[in-house]
């Protein structure tokens, strides 16, 4: 593939924007990040190797811009002890005093079938909006950008234990919501 012009790059704007919004949960910031990405791509287009598609290449640049934005955000709003506690409280709330589940996880049958269902994705989007923005950002760094524990802890100046608690909370909350809103009626 040849080096892209502005029009080639703009084609991917919608995709990039959605990618950024899901992770940053802040549409204004997402706009900025996508804008920076497209500018950087245009400036650096001579370096486009042609080994990947334009979309993959742009996504690679976007990931770095998102991490930068998250790093800035976490510097402006560092993890406070109260927030840390509220994550642990949210987990506590999903279990009884003796450590049993409040909502015993049900069998979802063959959940992969749902991936083909458009309605599932709107439930999925709604459910991922339920966790606090900070938790969602960390969850997306891990699951969408596939950063390691070490990388995320370094970027956000948090400890692995902090991180694991947040990720666990994110998964529990997503799980519970999907079970109630989607799988509950299916099994």
């Amino acid at each position, binding site marked *: 593939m040849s080096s892209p012009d502005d029009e080639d790059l703009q084609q991917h704007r919608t995709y990039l924007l959605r*990618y950024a919004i*899901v992770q940053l949960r802040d549409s204004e910031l997402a706009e900025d990040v996508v804008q920076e990405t497209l500018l950087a791509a245009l400036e650096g287009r001579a370096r486009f190797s042609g080994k990947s598609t334009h979309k993959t290449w742009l996504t690679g640049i976007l990931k770095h811009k998102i991490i930068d934005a998250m790093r800035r955000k976490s510097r402006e709003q560092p993890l406070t002890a109260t927030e840390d506690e509220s994550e642990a409280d949210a*987990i506590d709330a999903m*279990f009884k005093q*003796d*450590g*049993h*589940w409040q*909502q*015993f*996880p*049900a*069998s*979802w049958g063959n*959940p*992969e079938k749902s*991936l083909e269902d458009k309605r599932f*994705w709107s439930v*999925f989007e709604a459910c991922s909006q339920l966790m606090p923005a900070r938790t969602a950002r960390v969850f997306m760094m*891990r*699951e*969408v950008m596939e950063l390691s*524990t070490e990388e995320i802890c370094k970027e956000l100046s948090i400890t*692995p234990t902090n*991180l*694991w608690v947040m*990720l*666990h909370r994110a*998964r*529990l909350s*997503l*799980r519970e919501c*999907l*079970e109630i809103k989607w799988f509950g009626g299916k099994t």
Partner: protein
Amino acid sequence: MPGNQVVRGQDVKLRMLGLSCKDASALLSQAQERTLGPYERLKLRLHLGLCDGCTNFRRQLEFIRAAVRRYRDS
């Protein structure tokens, strides 16, 4: 189905093993971030053998990971 919590005798055994559903679910989640130690794996295996809820949770974690990636790549 809140009715199918582990039956009473198993419940006692689980607590003797020192791993509640809360602990087990945290380990299952951490297993997505790091390699669990041999003792953690053993305790978890014993717990999962007796607990359908946590076994379902393990499967749900795999599904959630796959779903996020599908969402990303769509």
